[in-house]
Protein backbone atom coordinates (compact mmCIF):
# COMPACT_ATOMS: atom_id res chain seq x y z
CA UNK A 1 0.00 0.00 0.00
CA UNK A 2 1.34 3.44 -0.86
CA UNK A 3 1.50 5.94 1.94
CA UNK A 4 -0.27 9.23 1.35
CA UNK A 5 -1.35 12.31 3.24
CA UNK A 6 -5.00 11.41 2.41
CA UNK A 7 -7.30 13.15 -0.08
CA UNK A 8 -8.12 16.85 0.16
CA UNK A 9 -11.55 18.08 1.29
CA UNK A 10 -12.80 21.62 0.99
CA UNK A 11 -14.33 23.05 4.13
CA UNK A 12 -17.27 25.46 4.25
CA UNK A 13 -18.22 27.00 7.56
CA UNK A 14 -21.44 28.70 8.57
CA UNK A 15 -20.43 31.28 11.13
CA UNK A 16 -23.88 32.24 12.37
CA UNK A 17 -27.39 30.94 11.93
CA UNK A 18 -29.15 32.12 8.79
CA UNK A 19 -26.08 33.10 6.80
CA UNK A 20 -24.53 31.12 3.94
CA UNK A 21 -21.63 28.75 4.39
CA UNK A 22 -18.33 30.28 3.40
CA UNK A 23 -15.19 28.56 2.16
CA UNK A 24 -12.74 28.37 5.09
CA UNK A 25 -9.93 26.26 3.65
CA UNK A 26 -9.18 22.58 3.27
CA UNK A 27 -8.16 19.52 5.24
CA UNK A 28 -6.84 16.09 4.44
CA UNK A 29 -8.96 13.12 5.50
CA UNK A 30 -9.47 9.47 4.59
CA UNK A 31 -13.28 9.71 4.54
CA UNK A 32 -16.25 12.01 5.16
CA UNK A 33 -16.57 11.50 8.91
CA UNK A 34 -12.90 12.17 9.53
CA UNK A 35 -13.04 15.13 7.16
CA UNK A 36 -15.83 16.59 9.23
CA UNK A 37 -13.94 16.05 12.47
CA UNK A 38 -10.70 17.41 11.05
CA UNK A 39 -12.53 20.45 9.71
CA UNK A 40 -14.01 21.00 13.15
CA UNK A 41 -10.61 20.70 14.79
CA UNK A 42 -8.86 22.97 12.30
CA UNK A 43 -11.44 25.60 11.44
CA UNK A 44 -13.49 26.13 14.56
CA UNK A 45 -10.79 26.59 17.16
CA UNK A 46 -11.89 30.14 17.85
CA UNK A 47 -15.65 29.51 17.82
CA UNK A 48 -15.81 30.49 14.18
CA UNK A 49 -18.58 28.12 13.27
CA UNK A 50 -21.89 26.52 13.98
CA UNK A 51 -22.22 24.27 10.97
CA UNK A 52 -19.65 22.71 8.65
CA UNK A 53 -19.79 21.22 5.17
CA UNK A 54 -16.97 19.13 3.80
CA UNK A 55 -16.71 18.30 0.11
CA UNK A 56 -14.11 16.12 -1.61
CA UNK A 57 -11.95 18.64 -3.46
CA UNK A 58 -12.08 16.55 -6.63
CA UNK A 59 -15.89 16.70 -6.61
CA UNK A 60 -15.83 20.42 -7.21
CA UNK A 61 -16.11 21.64 -10.78
CA UNK A 62 -14.92 25.19 -11.23
CA UNK A 63 -15.40 27.49 -14.20
CA UNK A 64 -12.13 28.37 -15.82
CA UNK A 65 -10.61 31.83 -16.29
CA UNK A 66 -11.15 31.50 -20.06
CA UNK A 67 -14.87 31.18 -19.40
CA UNK A 68 -14.94 34.52 -17.69
CA UNK A 69 -15.93 36.52 -20.74
CA UNK A 70 -18.64 34.23 -22.02
CA UNK A 71 -19.97 33.37 -18.56
CA UNK A 72 -20.15 36.68 -16.83
CA UNK A 73 -19.89 39.56 -19.24
CA UNK A 74 -23.28 39.02 -20.92
CA UNK A 75 -24.96 40.14 -17.73
CA UNK A 76 -23.15 43.47 -17.81
CA UNK A 77 -25.53 44.96 -20.40
CA UNK A 78 -28.67 44.22 -18.46
CA UNK A 79 -28.88 47.18 -16.13
CA UNK A 80 -32.66 46.80 -16.05
CA UNK A 81 -32.14 43.94 -13.60
CA UNK A 82 -31.03 46.46 -10.98
CA UNK A 83 -33.49 48.65 -9.09
CA UNK A 84 -31.38 51.78 -9.66
CA UNK A 85 -32.25 51.53 -13.39
CA UNK A 86 -35.71 52.90 -12.72
CA UNK A 87 -36.55 56.54 -12.04
CA UNK A 88 -39.24 56.96 -9.45
CA UNK A 89 -40.55 60.47 -8.73
CA UNK A 90 -39.69 61.81 -5.32
CA UNK A 91 -42.56 61.49 -2.94
CA UNK A 92 -43.59 58.03 -4.10
CA UNK A 93 -43.08 55.77 -1.14
CA UNK A 94 -42.50 52.06 -0.54
CA UNK A 95 -41.05 51.35 -3.97
Amino acid at each position, binding site marked *: *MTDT*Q*WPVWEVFVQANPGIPHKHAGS*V*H*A*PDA*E*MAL*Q*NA*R*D*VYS*RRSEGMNIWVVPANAITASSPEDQGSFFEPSNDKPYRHPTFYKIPEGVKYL
Partner: protein
Amino acid sequence: MNLQQAKFEYLLRLGDSSLIIGHRLSEWCGHGPILEEDLAMINIALDFVGNTSELLKYAGQLEDKGRDEDELAYMRDEREFRNLLITEQPNGDFAFTIARQFLFDTYMFFLYEGLKASKDETIAAIAAKSHKEITYHLRHTSEWMYRLGDGTAESHDRLQSAVNDLWMFTAELFDMDEVDALLIKEGVAPDLNNIKTEWETRVNEVFAKATLQLPTTTFKQKGSREGKHTEHLGFLLAEMQYLHRAYPGAKW
Protein backbone atom coordinates in the same frame (compact mmCIF):
# COMPACT_ATOMS: atom_id res chain seq x y z
CA MET B 1 -15.00 11.76 57.01
CA ASN B 2 -17.39 14.61 56.46
CA LEU B 3 -19.05 15.59 53.21
CA GLN B 4 -16.58 18.38 52.54
CA GLN B 5 -13.60 16.04 52.90
CA ALA B 6 -15.26 13.44 50.71
CA LYS B 7 -15.89 16.02 48.01
CA PHE B 8 -12.30 17.21 48.19
CA GLU B 9 -11.03 13.67 47.77
CA TYR B 10 -13.45 13.02 44.92
CA LEU B 11 -12.46 16.21 43.11
CA LEU B 12 -8.81 15.17 43.31
CA ARG B 13 -9.72 11.87 41.67
CA LEU B 14 -11.52 13.60 38.83
CA GLY B 15 -9.06 16.47 38.50
CA ASP B 16 -5.93 14.34 38.68
CA SER B 17 -7.21 11.93 36.03
CA SER B 18 -7.89 14.84 33.69
CA LEU B 19 -4.54 16.42 34.48
CA ILE B 20 -2.54 13.29 33.85
CA ILE B 21 -4.28 12.02 30.73
CA GLY B 22 -4.21 15.54 29.29
CA HIS B 23 -0.51 15.66 30.02
CA ARG B 24 0.06 12.38 28.21
CA LEU B 25 -1.85 13.64 25.18
CA SER B 26 0.15 16.85 25.16
CA GLU B 27 3.31 14.77 24.78
CA TRP B 28 2.13 13.99 21.24
CA CYS B 29 2.25 17.64 20.22
CA GLY B 30 4.26 17.93 17.02
CA HIS B 31 4.70 14.17 16.69
CA GLY B 32 1.26 13.00 15.52
CA PRO B 33 0.71 10.60 12.63
CA ILE B 34 -0.65 13.38 10.41
CA LEU B 35 -1.00 17.12 10.85
CA GLU B 36 -4.78 17.04 11.22
CA GLU B 37 -4.57 14.47 14.01
CA ASP B 38 -1.86 16.48 15.74
CA LEU B 39 -4.30 19.36 15.97
CA ALA B 40 -7.14 17.08 17.07
CA MET B 41 -5.12 15.61 19.94
CA ILE B 42 -4.10 19.06 21.12
CA ASN B 43 -7.74 20.12 21.15
CA ILE B 44 -8.54 17.21 23.41
CA ALA B 45 -5.54 17.92 25.62
CA LEU B 46 -6.65 21.53 25.94
CA ASP B 47 -10.10 20.46 27.09
CA PHE B 48 -8.46 18.37 29.79
CA VAL B 49 -6.26 21.20 31.00
CA GLY B 50 -9.33 23.43 31.29
CA ASN B 51 -11.30 20.75 33.07
CA THR B 52 -8.40 20.12 35.47
CA SER B 53 -8.20 23.79 36.39
CA GLU B 54 -11.88 23.96 37.24
CA LEU B 55 -11.90 20.77 39.29
CA LEU B 56 -8.72 21.45 41.26
CA LYS B 57 -9.67 25.05 41.84
CA TYR B 58 -12.91 23.92 43.42
CA ALA B 59 -11.08 21.23 45.38
CA GLY B 60 -8.81 23.92 46.80
CA GLN B 61 -11.76 26.08 47.75
CA LEU B 62 -13.45 23.22 49.57
CA GLU B 63 -10.26 22.30 51.36
CA ASP B 64 -9.89 25.92 52.45
CA LYS B 65 -6.17 25.79 53.18
CA GLY B 66 -5.21 28.35 50.59
CA ARG B 67 -4.14 25.87 47.92
CA ASP B 68 -5.14 26.85 44.39
CA GLU B 69 -5.26 24.63 41.31
CA ASP B 70 -1.56 25.14 40.55
CA GLU B 71 -0.50 24.41 44.09
CA LEU B 72 -2.48 21.17 43.93
CA ALA B 73 -1.20 20.19 40.49
CA TYR B 74 2.43 21.13 40.95
CA MET B 75 3.25 20.70 44.62
CA ARG B 76 1.91 17.27 45.54
CA ASP B 77 3.98 14.08 45.43
CA GLU B 78 3.20 10.77 43.71
CA ARG B 79 1.54 9.25 46.74
CA GLU B 80 -0.87 12.16 46.98
CA PHE B 81 -2.07 11.83 43.41
CA ARG B 82 -5.45 10.20 42.83
CA ASN B 83 -5.54 9.81 39.06
CA LEU B 84 -6.59 6.43 37.66
CA LEU B 85 -3.67 4.19 36.76
CA ILE B 86 -4.82 3.96 33.14
CA THR B 87 -4.32 7.69 32.67
CA GLU B 88 -0.63 7.63 33.57
CA GLN B 89 0.36 4.79 31.22
CA PRO B 90 2.94 6.06 28.68
CA ASN B 91 1.72 6.86 25.19
CA GLY B 92 3.25 3.90 23.37
CA ASP B 93 2.25 3.90 19.71
CA PHE B 94 -0.81 5.67 18.32
CA ALA B 95 -2.91 2.53 18.84
CA PHE B 96 -2.03 2.44 22.52
CA THR B 97 -2.86 6.12 22.95
CA ILE B 98 -6.19 5.72 21.17
CA ALA B 99 -7.12 2.60 23.14
CA ARG B 100 -6.23 4.28 26.44
CA GLN B 101 -8.15 7.37 25.46
CA PHE B 102 -11.19 5.47 24.22
CA LEU B 103 -11.49 3.34 27.36
CA PHE B 104 -11.15 6.40 29.53
CA ASP B 105 -13.39 8.64 27.39
CA THR B 106 -16.18 6.08 27.55
CA TYR B 107 -15.87 6.00 31.33
CA MET B 108 -15.76 9.77 31.59
CA PHE B 109 -18.72 10.14 29.21
CA PHE B 110 -21.06 8.11 31.43
CA LEU B 111 -19.55 9.34 34.69
CA TYR B 112 -19.98 13.00 33.79
CA GLU B 113 -23.46 12.34 32.48
CA GLY B 114 -24.22 11.20 36.02
CA LEU B 115 -22.37 14.14 37.55
CA LYS B 116 -24.50 16.60 35.59
CA ALA B 117 -27.26 15.69 38.04
CA SER B 118 -25.04 16.22 41.09
CA LYS B 119 -26.61 18.01 44.03
CA ASP B 120 -23.40 19.99 44.29
CA GLU B 121 -24.09 22.82 41.88
CA THR B 122 -20.46 23.56 41.09
CA ILE B 123 -19.76 19.94 40.24
CA ALA B 124 -22.94 19.78 38.16
CA ALA B 125 -21.92 22.90 36.24
CA ILE B 126 -18.38 21.66 35.58
CA ALA B 127 -19.78 18.30 34.46
CA ALA B 128 -22.31 19.89 32.13
CA LYS B 129 -19.63 21.92 30.39
CA SER B 130 -17.19 19.03 30.20
CA HIS B 131 -19.76 16.56 29.00
CA LYS B 132 -20.09 18.40 25.69
CA GLU B 133 -16.33 18.19 25.25
CA ILE B 134 -16.19 14.52 26.19
CA THR B 135 -18.99 13.71 23.77
CA TYR B 136 -16.74 14.93 21.00
CA HIS B 137 -13.63 13.19 22.38
CA LEU B 138 -15.49 9.91 22.49
CA ARG B 139 -16.73 10.34 18.95
CA HIS B 140 -13.19 11.01 17.80
CA THR B 141 -11.57 8.10 19.63
CA SER B 142 -14.38 5.70 18.69
CA GLU B 143 -13.89 6.52 15.01
CA TRP B 144 -10.20 5.78 15.40
CA MET B 145 -11.00 2.49 17.16
CA TYR B 146 -12.97 1.43 14.05
CA ARG B 147 -10.29 2.56 11.63
CA LEU B 148 -7.40 0.95 13.46
CA GLY B 149 -9.33 -2.17 14.46
CA ASP B 150 -10.78 -2.76 11.01
CA GLY B 151 -8.05 -1.10 8.94
CA THR B 152 -5.00 -3.15 8.02
CA ALA B 153 -3.71 -6.35 9.63
CA GLU B 154 -0.93 -4.32 11.23
CA SER B 155 -3.24 -1.71 12.72
CA HIS B 156 -5.58 -4.41 13.98
CA ASP B 157 -2.77 -6.26 15.74
CA ARG B 158 -1.38 -3.11 17.26
CA LEU B 159 -4.76 -2.07 18.59
CA GLN B 160 -5.62 -5.53 19.89
CA SER B 161 -2.36 -5.77 21.80
CA ALA B 162 -2.85 -2.25 23.19
CA VAL B 163 -6.28 -3.17 24.46
CA ASN B 164 -4.92 -6.38 25.94
CA ASP B 165 -2.17 -4.50 27.76
CA LEU B 166 -4.53 -1.88 29.12
CA TRP B 167 -7.25 -4.22 30.24
CA MET B 168 -5.81 -4.85 33.70
CA PHE B 169 -6.29 -1.17 34.53
CA THR B 170 -9.99 -1.03 33.67
CA ALA B 171 -11.45 -2.68 36.78
CA GLU B 172 -10.14 0.16 38.86
CA LEU B 173 -12.38 2.64 37.08
CA PHE B 174 -15.34 1.29 39.00
CA ASP B 175 -13.74 0.82 42.38
CA MET B 176 -15.72 2.41 45.19
CA ASP B 177 -14.88 3.20 48.77
CA GLU B 178 -16.27 5.23 51.65
CA VAL B 179 -15.87 8.46 49.66
CA ASP B 180 -18.15 7.17 46.94
CA ALA B 181 -20.58 5.70 49.46
CA LEU B 182 -21.04 9.03 51.18
CA LEU B 183 -21.30 11.02 47.96
CA ILE B 184 -23.79 8.60 46.44
CA LYS B 185 -25.90 8.84 49.57
CA GLU B 186 -25.81 12.64 49.41
CA GLY B 187 -26.65 12.72 45.71
CA VAL B 188 -23.31 14.28 44.80
CA ALA B 189 -21.87 11.44 42.72
CA PRO B 190 -23.35 8.58 40.68
CA ASP B 191 -23.08 4.90 41.60
CA LEU B 192 -20.16 3.47 39.62
CA ASN B 193 -21.92 0.12 39.37
CA ASN B 194 -24.38 1.74 36.99
CA ILE B 195 -21.60 3.45 35.08
CA LYS B 196 -19.91 0.09 34.76
CA THR B 197 -22.88 -1.48 32.98
CA GLU B 198 -23.10 1.39 30.54
CA TRP B 199 -19.35 1.35 30.01
CA GLU B 200 -19.33 -2.39 29.28
CA THR B 201 -22.18 -2.12 26.81
CA ARG B 202 -20.54 0.69 24.88
CA VAL B 203 -17.10 -0.90 24.91
CA ASN B 204 -18.58 -4.15 23.63
CA GLU B 205 -20.36 -2.34 20.80
CA VAL B 206 -17.27 -0.48 19.70
CA PHE B 207 -15.04 -3.55 20.00
CA ALA B 208 -17.46 -5.54 17.85
CA LYS B 209 -17.51 -2.89 15.15
CA ALA B 210 -13.74 -2.58 15.37
CA THR B 211 -13.40 -6.39 15.06
CA LEU B 212 -11.59 -6.58 18.39
CA GLN B 213 -11.61 -9.44 20.86
CA LEU B 214 -12.49 -8.68 24.46
CA PRO B 215 -9.28 -9.31 26.43
CA THR B 216 -9.27 -12.32 28.72
CA THR B 217 -6.86 -10.79 31.24
CA THR B 218 -8.02 -11.60 34.73
CA PHE B 219 -5.38 -9.71 36.67
CA LYS B 220 -6.73 -6.40 37.93
CA GLN B 221 -4.31 -3.74 39.03
CA LYS B 222 -5.69 -1.16 41.42
CA GLY B 223 -4.40 1.36 43.88
CA SER B 224 -4.91 4.94 42.71
CA ARG B 225 -7.54 5.59 45.37
CA GLU B 226 -4.76 5.22 47.94
CA GLY B 227 -2.12 6.87 45.75
CA LYS B 228 -0.43 3.57 44.84
CA HIS B 229 0.62 4.22 41.29
CA THR B 230 2.59 2.52 38.58
CA GLU B 231 6.23 3.54 38.28
CA HIS B 232 5.42 5.82 35.37
CA LEU B 233 3.72 8.54 37.37
CA GLY B 234 6.85 9.61 39.21
CA PHE B 235 8.68 10.40 35.99
CA LEU B 236 5.71 12.25 34.59
CA LEU B 237 5.48 14.40 37.72
CA ALA B 238 9.21 14.98 37.82
CA GLU B 239 8.97 16.51 34.38
CA MET B 240 5.71 18.34 34.89
CA GLN B 241 6.52 19.84 38.28
CA TYR B 242 10.22 20.53 37.97
CA LEU B 243 10.12 24.19 36.96
CA HIS B 244 7.37 25.13 39.35
CA ARG B 245 9.21 23.49 42.22
CA ALA B 246 12.67 24.74 41.28
CA TYR B 247 11.64 28.33 41.97
CA PRO B 248 9.47 28.25 45.07
CA GLY B 249 7.00 31.10 45.23
CA ALA B 250 7.90 32.48 41.80
CA LYS B 251 5.15 33.80 39.55
CA TRP B 252 5.04 32.80 35.90
